């Protein structure tokens, strides 16, 4: 069964860039995109233990007929058979249910009904909820179409980071690209991180794709991020802890995404490795 990437199409030039990013990701990964052209400004995603209502701004509804031709045009150019998603079930007449059985999903940084917030450089609460609840990783694209040539994984040693590393290795294997790991060394020394990887039985796998492992031993994490190549797909894990902890300790995900504008692939706490 071919893996699927779920993409919500916005019929604007910005939406075109996002779809191009998704198409690039799909072509690299051998994944098929499923494109949803929204029919109303809201939809529901039912996860295992959460239901997320996603509200879109009205620009998603621009000329649905033209949107179909736009999508088909872009997909045909990439020689992918266009597959449009039509919702089967409705919670209320204007509230379709979107299944959550995809392998990937592409999101803008923020999905909201207030367009002004888009591109403000923080991850919106809806996208956060989706990341927290989803079994699939979420692709957060940079605003402009940017093909990536290598993979950068942020690895902090936690269980989620291991999941993200697994995901990174899988992408590196499929695409044949090199993978670099970035670790901000805290109190531990670098060998500790390597030991974690060995513990999880990832040593062999990692060796075959790893180009380098960068340890940031000093300096602020945000400043060190300049080291990450501009054309890398950044893979990271998101953590399951709540808002309070994020405010107190600061969220790694937030720091990374507000500093670098690469394409991000985020694996949430419920992410399960497929295949």
């Amino acid at each position, binding site marked *: 069964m071919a893996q699927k990437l779920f993409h919500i199409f916005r019929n604007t030039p910005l939406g075109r860039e996002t779809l191009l990013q998704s198409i690039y990701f799909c072509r690299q990964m051998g994944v098929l995109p499923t494109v949803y052209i929204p029919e109303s400004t809201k939809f529901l995603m*039912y996860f295992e233990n959460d239901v997320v209502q996603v509200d879109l701004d009205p620009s998603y509804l621009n000329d649905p007929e033209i949107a179909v031709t736009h999508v088909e045009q872009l997909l045909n150019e990439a020689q992918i058979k266009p597959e449009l998603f039509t919702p089967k079930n409705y*919670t209320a007449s204007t509230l379709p249910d979107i299944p959550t059985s995809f392998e990937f999903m592409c999101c803008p940084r923020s999905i909201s009904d207030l367009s002004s917030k888009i591109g403000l450089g923080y991850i919106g609460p809806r996208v956060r909820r989706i990341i927290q609840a989803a079994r699939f990783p979420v692709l957060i694209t940079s605003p402009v179409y940017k093909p990536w040539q290598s993979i950068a994984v942020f690895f902090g040693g936690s269980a989620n980071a291991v999941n993200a590393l697994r995901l990174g290795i899988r992408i590196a294997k499929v695409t044949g690209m090199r993978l670099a790991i970035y670790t901000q060394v805290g109190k531990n020394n670098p060998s500790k991180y390597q030991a974690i990887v060995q513990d999880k039985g990832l040593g062999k796998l990692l060796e075959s794709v790893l180009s380098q492992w960068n340890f940031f031993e000093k300096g602020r994490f945000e400043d060190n991020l300049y080291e990450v190549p501009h054309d890398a797909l950044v893979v990271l894990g998101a953590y399951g*802890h709540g808002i309070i902890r994020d405010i107190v300790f600061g969220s790694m995900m937030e720091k990374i995404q507000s500093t670098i504008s690469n394409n991000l692939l985020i694996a949430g706490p419920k992410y399960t490795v497929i295949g």
Partner: protein
Amino acid sequence: MTRLLEKLKYPGRWSLFRSDDRLLLMIFAIIVGICSGLAALFLNRSLETMLEWLHHYRVYWWAIFLPAAGAALSSLFLEKIVNEGAGHGVPEVIYAVSRYGGLLRLRSGFSRLISSCLTIGSGGSAGPEAPVVMSGAAIGSNIAQAFSLNDRQRVALVGCGAAGAIAAIFNAPISGMVFAIEVILGEWSTMNIIPIAIAAVAGTEVSRLLKGNQIVFAHRDFNIHFHDILACVGLAIFCAAASILLTRALRSMHHVSKGVAVPLWVRAAIGGSMVGAIGYFLPYVLGEGYHAIRTAIEGGFSGGLMLVAVIALVKILATALTLGWGGSGGIFAPCLVIGAFVGLSFHRFLATVWSSVPWVNEGCFALLGMAGLISGILQAPLTGIFLVIEITGGYEVILPLIVVSAISTTLCHYLEPASFYLKDLVKRGQLLRPGTDARVLTDLSIQELLETDCICVHPNMRLADFIHIVKSSRRNYFPVEDQQSRQFVGMIHLDDIRPYLFDPAMHHAVLTGQLMNTHVKTVSLHDDLAEVLQKMDDGHIFSMPVVSDNRFQGMISKATLLDQYRKELMVQTDRY
């Protein structure tokens, strides 16, 4: 500290609750019952405050625009602020319960409370019960989500929320319990009944603590004779007629309002102002109408037969205008009002025609009418009977009550097969009660039924080679895939090769590509099982290939389906 929080977050993993979650559910039922009880009381209080506050302005002519303003505000609130659709929300709860294990949004926990408060408080003719049911259910669901409970436990808590809300608003624990089980869950199992009963009691206690233990519609004693019971048959027929009229009026009002091409809030305002205009002449129809019911039951209503009948009809119209044009609220309270006035008019009618017969007090008929309408609209006779007994404290009317409820439900069922809460779901084919065929088929996915022990062949194979594969296979079906692209091109059934099987000359001359059937009906992994079965029945076939993205995934057959279907049914209909 974090460890403790982590532990608190997953109470299902505590060793105390591990072996049996009944205790866990009972504790959560109390919490949910209290919360939904509070939500119900909040709405009740704010409605009272608002009605009292606006009461002074009713005398002015511009008061007819008050319901318009309220309805418009409530529509704006739902549409722009919380982004939810109009409607009373009960179908949404039932839908979530049957399809997604009772997952409801947090915003549903308060949105309907505020919007219905605006609609009803300003004078719109609607009930606060459906909104509190929605809130209670959403509160239950979100508590379950916060503690990572599983679907079955979450559904039980959704039921608890609904039960607590109804119990609190009417001070009627049994009705709350029966409503939650009969209407919301549709499943009578001890697993659910106990926590729901607890939640109903908790909700009632909250209401008694804060509002005092009062019977909502107290009445005098009734002295019921046999001829009164006979007359009930007639009353039931009138109640059924009124129920049908209300249902039809609501539906046609929806169609009319849909044709008006204005923003939703303007639509609500139009409906509201019409209600306001009616209310200027007949103030009885405004609001949720508890006051009118009280007067009717106490027998203090002075109007004649014509006036009472007109009020019943106008109340139907006002309710249809409020709800059909986009106001927010439920149907419960209007039903009670209409029922009371139907009962009253029937009593007046009897008293005029057979004036010599000593009929029972008119309050009794008002009460019976209420039960008749609730039963007819909800088609939930138990809810109707218990609700009327509890809110009136009148146990002595039980016999005529059952007669009216039963006849009214039956008559309505002939004309409107699905009840008010369920008809949308039935129309969409989404009423999936536990243990029913539709539910089992929805729960099972094609992925789970896939038989993957088929051996794929390619179209350029000689028959001789194919026969060797046949020898080692247990199946009669052989999918054919293209050698390079691995795309599905057709199927070969054993029957297709039978004519050539014993003809060795053909073994080397024929290729599988020439034998295969390229026009096979296939299904996709994401198809609904009900549709797949329909396809099988139409074609008189027992198994079909599953093909997704042009790749063969496996076979699906009725034999495996029966096996899985049985297991699913056995697990789903547990009664322990």
